[in-house]
């Protein structure tokens, strides 16, 4: 039963994700929350690991969530779910390629979808911010903890690096090292 739910959830995500892996985060988050598959922290960790391992983000995340929920069989089912809609849709389009390319309707739909994807990645950003900086809710005491300011500084530095086109893997390694230093330094 969990396997069927897992398959259907990723089938849905695969069929409605436009614009790549990051656009998926908001959707995976909603599904995982509804089904109780993983915590916010786990989700953020999966995004990091998917970024630092080869292959499409979407496949990496599906395999991860599937594996965590139901082991190897879950990983296979979730990956199959995320791949299947793409596969079928592309086969159909490849057959009637010219018509699709010139279709005004497709252009119109895309003009609505592209900004929607931007909004949804924005939503993912907001929810990840909450998880990272306010894991136990927003309160005054958060701002007096050293950890909060260290991670805010780390976020500022990594943002600059990301916009300077430093490779994500290097950024992730650097922040892992700083995390270890801060963790021991603060005696968390």
């Amino acid at each position, binding site marked *: 039963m969990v396997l069927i739910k897992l398959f259907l959830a990723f089938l849905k995500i695969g069929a409605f994700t*436009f614009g790549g892996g990051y656009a998926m985060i908001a959707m995976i988050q909603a599904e995982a929350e509804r089904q109780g598959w993983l915590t916010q922290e786990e989700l953020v960790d999966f995004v990091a690991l998917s970024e630092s391992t080869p292959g*499409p983000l979407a496949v990496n995340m599906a395999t991860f969530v599937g594996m965590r929920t139901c082991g190897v069989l879950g990983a296979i089912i979730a990956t199959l779910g995320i791949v299947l809609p793409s*596969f079928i849709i592309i086969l159909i389009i*490849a057959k009637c390629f010219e018509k699709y390319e010139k279709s005004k309707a497709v252009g119109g739909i895309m003009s*609505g979808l592209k900004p929607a994807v931007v909004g949804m990645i924005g939503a993912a950003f907001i929810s990840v911010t909450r998880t990272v900086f306010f894991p136990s809710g927003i309160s005054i005491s958060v701002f007096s903890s050293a950890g909060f300011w260290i991670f805010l500084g780390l976020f500022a530095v990594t943002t600059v690096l990301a916009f300077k086109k430093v490779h*994500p893997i290097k950024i992730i390694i650097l922040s892992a090292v700083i*995390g270890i230093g801060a963790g021991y330094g603060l005696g968390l």
Partner: protein
Amino acid sequence: MNKNLELFLTFMKIGAFTFGGGYAMIPLIQKEVCENKKWLNEKEISDIVAISESTPGPIAINAATFVGYKTSGFLGACMATLGVVLPSFLIISLISMILTHFQSIRPVRYAFMGIRAAVLALILKALWMMFHQVKKKKQPFSYAIMGLSLVLTAFLKIDAVFVIIGCGLFGLIWSLLNRKEQSNGTD
């Protein structure tokens, strides 16, 4: 060598060596498929990329399926898709098995604490890139949809699927109405 097997191996190589998702894969696909194997020409590949971006699902999988189908029909599509997925699947399965044990180790837990702040930066960068793509058109319509979908998903917790369907429909209707206005204007 059998063409289907060749497709499988080529896309397995692409899947195993691309970091950072579908966009990073495009130049690699171009090089392998056009220059090395000469399966398709430059024009065909750029069409395939455009369609992969405008259809649902991971860009890498869309592109693999499309190239496989164009090169060698249905079986080719299966082989290329399998090839691009397999490395990810194996690597992640392995990491995920090990990670469960690793995460109880203190330094690993600390490392992930740090990494979480970096993920935020990476999402912010993706957001900025996508925003720039849309901004080129500079329509109030685009900004309205951006804001609306943000509020609906982040604060009102509306299922993202409905937001996607709604915005797609809205775009379709808007473009149809606008076309009508334009043709009225020329009368």
